[in-house]
């Protein structure tokens, strides 16, 4: 019932590995980790959700906020490693058409 945020930086590319649950309790921590990065110019943020076991609308809100901020600073924002469950959440909310998503093994970093 917690989350770890692991950020790997290579020039302007940031790979953010998340592990745990994203809910009302952990979302503020995630937001604090992502926003300073998202406010830099021309960054590419890749968020790996492979190890995320639970997520609800609080997580979607954080990702939408970070996505907007990245785009406003001419950067790129990509989600990878989504399980079928997570993918479904983005599908039913319509976010799958808006945010760049690579599901499952398609974009895995393993």
């Amino acid at each position, binding site marked *: 019932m917690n989350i770890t945020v692991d950020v790997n930086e290579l020039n302007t590319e940031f790979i953010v590995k998340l592990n745990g649950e994203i*809910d*009302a*309790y952990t979302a503020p921590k995630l937001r604090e980790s992502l926003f300073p990065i998202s406010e830099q110019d021309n960054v590419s943020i890749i968020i790996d959700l492979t190890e995320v076991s*639970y997520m*609800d*609308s609080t997580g*979607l*809100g954080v990702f*939408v906020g970070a996505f907007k901020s990245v785009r406003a600073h001419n950067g790129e924002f990509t989600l990878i490693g989504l399980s079928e469950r997570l993918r479904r959440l983005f599908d039913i909310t319509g976010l799958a058409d808006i945010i760049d998503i690579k599901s499952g093994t398609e974009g895995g970093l393993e």
Partner: protein
Amino acid sequence: MSQVYDYIEMKIPAKPEFIGVIRLTLSGIGSRMGFAYDEIEDLKIATSEACTNAVQHAYKDLEKGEVKVSFGLYPDRLEVMVSDSGKSCNFEEVRQGLGPYEHGQKVELLREGGLGLYLIETLMDDVKIHQHDGVTVFMTKFLEGEQVEMDAKTVST
């Protein structure tokens, strides 16, 4: 017509760190009743959303508060009730502007919240919201489709 059912009730402090505790309980109840994995995950999200609303909106002006979550276990369905005794908010107002994002929407205009109620209504079979001193969300999910085998190994919670 009255029906025999089992009833479970929990009260948690209106703090976000306890919403995960409700999810753990719900996993246990859902697998005990024979809900499929995906249905249990739907239940967890919908119930968490209701708890998040209760914690975040109903108590924003108060120091302390409680959220009551009750489960009615029927042979064919699970009813989950999430209620707070905080200040009532105008749910019709909250409802406005809810719903999925639309393709082609301008990025800078994307909402960063307000999906909770939409997810509850999408993931549950029946949803009712009552306003009194606080707000109570009644949600029902019916047992159907492919269910976990009754003699299958216990789903870990």
